[in-house]
């Protein structure tokens, strides 16, 4: 009997841990960004910027987040240059997303530089997080 309760408790606690771990990384980043002045994360603004096209030089003169990730965050993307598949961005489809804050910051840095030609501001990153976490 006791074992059954134990197993039931374990099974119930696994998904709970998942959800917690997922929001923990996002929460801590949002707190960081808030400390830098970005108090309100807006998913709508994040979506608009995700789809915005930026004019750049070189091989890819028009760049956007959607160039590689597509406009549908539940879909698999394709890297425009290397053709490599990129797994879906939103955690509801790909639970590994947004679970590691170091990784999130690494990709923000690289991909904002490629797409916009500069690093993103705290507010832009907060908006992106809100959008990726729950795309509308």
């Amino acid at each position, binding site marked *: 009997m006791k074992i059954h309760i134990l197993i039931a408790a374990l099974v119930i606690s696994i998904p709970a841990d998942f959800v917690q771990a997922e929001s923990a990384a996002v929460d801590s980043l949002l707190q960081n960004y808030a400390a830098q002045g970005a108090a309100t994360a807006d998913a709508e603004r994040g979506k608009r910027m995700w789809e915005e096209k930026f004019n750049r030089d070189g*091989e890819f003169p028009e760049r956007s987040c959607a160039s590689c990730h597509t406009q549908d965050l539940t879909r698999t993307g394709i890297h425009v240059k*290397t053709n490599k598949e990129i797994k879906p961005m939103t955690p509801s489809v790909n639970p590994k997303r947004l679970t590691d804050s170091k990784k999130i910051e690494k990709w923000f840095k*690289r991909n904002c*530089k490629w797409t916009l030609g500069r690093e993103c501001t705290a507010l832009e990153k907060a908006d992106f997080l809100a959008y990726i976490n729950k795309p509308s």
Partner: protein
Amino acid sequence: MKATLAVTAVIFTLGFVTIPVVWSDGDFRWKEMEEYEHRSTDVAAVENPVYKEECGSCHMAYPPGLLPARSWTKMMAGLEDHFGDDAELDPDTHKAIIRFLVENSADQSDYRRSRKFSQSIGSNDAPIRISDTSYFRHEHDEIPDRMVTGNTKVKNISQCDACHTDAERGAFNEHDIYIPGYGRWDD
């Protein structure tokens, strides 16, 4: 009676011990032969998880045995403009990856194809594109552009794994070539 029991016990024990030994020895030889064949024809497989994660997210994790150490060092010195992309790493990861690349580079490897790459590059040259080496060009000179740049499933000669189906395991021999839209390639 006791003696018979003892002998039976000994025979049983020997049997139990020797059978698995003989079998596993067979497996071991088989693996060893595969390893030898791979070594004598190809390049070493990529087995470093940090390298796979950090470099293999955007493109195929190219086996380090495809370029000499001086090429990898040069490439790793310019990650902020990595073929037009920003691929900067934190200092610890950067150091770990350079070490892995150098230790497994073409000039440190005794794999046959790594030797070929290494020998095809002048000692003063440090190409940072695998496709710029003369061995690579020689091996691909019969492939028409329509199968590569004109092929939406390939797009670029640098997507090794578009046609070399086992590229990350270091297998580049002819049996493992399948050109999307065209089928098997036989020299």
